[in-house]
């Protein structure tokens, strides 16, 4: 459960302060699949950094599962990221010379889990992300783009987070592969009940979700339920 109350973010520049977020408020419940959509410069990346506990707001309150994390220290934020958040990046950010399994298990290393247990959990996550088992021993730079992104999704899943934050996850993929990755997200949401927040600038990508929050110039301009997709999704099941 995410609750944002009047969140602002301003950066100090030479000429004074530049406001990137100007009072953003919304609630995302567990199990929702939401897109935050806006053009570049709208403040959606800054919002994602705050939601992902990579940054703290200048003012306002951000409650993650009821805990106010808007005023935590760097190390406390690292703990939040370790336990509650899974990231999927546009450029995958896998360790190139490490195997798929090691990449996926990496977050659990910082959580202090034993190696055998880590690998067990990594295998489950890879299964959920839909990467064929014969790829698990490969080095991550031997995979195709779509496979890499599914490894990254497995890595985001492995610590059983409250939210999965995906920042333009299809930006580096062709349409067909992007479709597969988005399907993976839909399945994780509909079958496993994961909360997924997808940040994108493309309407087409956002339409795969159940709710679209529009952001422009640091303010929420629209919050629409994507009923069409929900029905389509329902038919699939």
């Amino acid at each position: 459960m995410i609750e944002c109350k009047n969140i602002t973010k301003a950066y100090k520049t030479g000429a004074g302060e530049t406001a990137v977020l100007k009072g953003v408020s919304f609630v995302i419940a567990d199990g929702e699949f939401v897109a935050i959509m806006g053009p570049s410069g709208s403040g959606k990346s800054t919002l994602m950094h705050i939601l992902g506990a990579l940054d703290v707001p200048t003012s306002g309150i951000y409650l993650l599962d009821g805990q106010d994390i808007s005023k935590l220290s760097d190390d406390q934020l690292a703990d939040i990221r370790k336990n509650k958040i899974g990231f999927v990046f546009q450029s995958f950010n896998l360790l190139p010379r490490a195997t798929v399994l090691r990449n996926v298990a990496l977050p659990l290393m910082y959580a202090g889990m034993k190696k055998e247990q880590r690998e067990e959990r990594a295998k489950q996550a890879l299964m959920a992300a839909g990467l064929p088992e014969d790829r698990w021993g490969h080095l991550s730079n031997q995979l195709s783009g779509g496979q890499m992104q599914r490894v990254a999704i497995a890595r985001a899943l492995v610590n059983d987070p409250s939210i999965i934050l995906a920042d333009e996850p299809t930006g580096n993929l062709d349409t067909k592969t992007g479709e597969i990755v988005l399907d993976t997200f839909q399945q994780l949401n509909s079958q496993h009940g994961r909360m997924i927040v997808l940040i994108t600038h493309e309407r087409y990508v956002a339409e795969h979700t159940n709710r679209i929050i529009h952001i422009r110039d640091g303010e929420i301009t629209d919050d629409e339920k994507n009923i069409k997709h929900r029905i389509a999704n329902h038919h699939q099941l």
Partner: protein
Amino acid sequence: MNIADIFRETFSALLSNKARSGLTILGIVIGIGSVIAMISVGQGSTASIQSSIQSLGSNLLMVSPSFQRGVGMQVSAGRGSARTLKQEDVDAIQKEIMLIKAIAPELSSRYQIIAKGTNTNTSVLGTTPNYPEVRNVQIESGSFVSEQNVRSLSKVAVLGPTTRDDLFGEGVNPIGQTIHINKVDFKVIGVTKEKGGSGMSNQDDMIFVPLSTAQRFLAGSSYLSTIYIEIVDQESMTTAQEQITSLLLSRHNISNPELADFSVINQADIVASVSSISSTLTILLAAIAGISLIVGGIGIMNMMLTTVTERTREIGLRKAIGAKKKDISLQFLIESIMLTFIGGIVGIFLGWILSYAVAYFGSMTTEVTSWSIFLAVGVSACIGIIFGFYPARRAAGLNPIEALRYE
């Protein structure tokens, strides 16, 4: 993140760039290796100098003539030139000083020696039968100068092994042969055992003759060049030195000790001063080698800074998935410590091999001491920490958002 994980991460990071890791380690290997080799050379020469001084004899005092300077005269004839020591001084010391064990006077000078078509130039020492005991000289074959030889001014000679080799050839028994010292015939009656040593202080390149014979036929004077005195034990050395000094001062009618025409030298003083010279030498050698160690350390810092820059995105990712500052800095610190540690281990072996090579090909004594190994390992660990600290801190301080965007 436990220790095993950190080591796994470290090894995979170092192995992913083998050439660069290898060259960086090489810098440390050369540094540590040369420190150990240089210290071993220094230590070895200290040890060999000390042992050659010890072989002069133990608990030894040496009385030698000092400046010869008349009352009111400003001109000094130089140290050792004075003809002030006489047989009577020897007798008086023997009679009045209780702490002495044995005493041997010596009159030495260099002469040309001729034997059956070969010749050499070496020291000829006129002395008494006590000399072998006092100076720790042993007889290999034949006999040393006897009391009878001294009393009857016998023209007999005992050769050092090097002199024997020079005059008669190696392994030849020279006993009974005749040699000419300063155109006087001497009969060879013995050869001393090899003691080692080289150069001016070669204990093996000498000829011993009776003191009386040397005074009468070679020097033509009754003065002595040195009196060697063996003292009963180590503790009495200083007391004996003081007693002998005051006895000789009163015998020579000198009231001001600063004007003494002789000097009494304690063997321990020589050992101490030579040791201090050679330990200065050791420090100098080690310092020169230490510079290469520092250069190696800078190599590590350089590599780690490059690595941190190259892996900025990786650091960003690790932070995004929950790594704390401490986890990141520890990982990079362990990487640089690992580089110096591997370099240190290989360097110890290299240093050891170098020191053997120096001993084998350079015919120098070397000695690898355990403290030099501890020093080298300690220094290399410190270098890893010091030169790895800044890059590790830089990595840990990266902002995850900016690091993830880094191209």
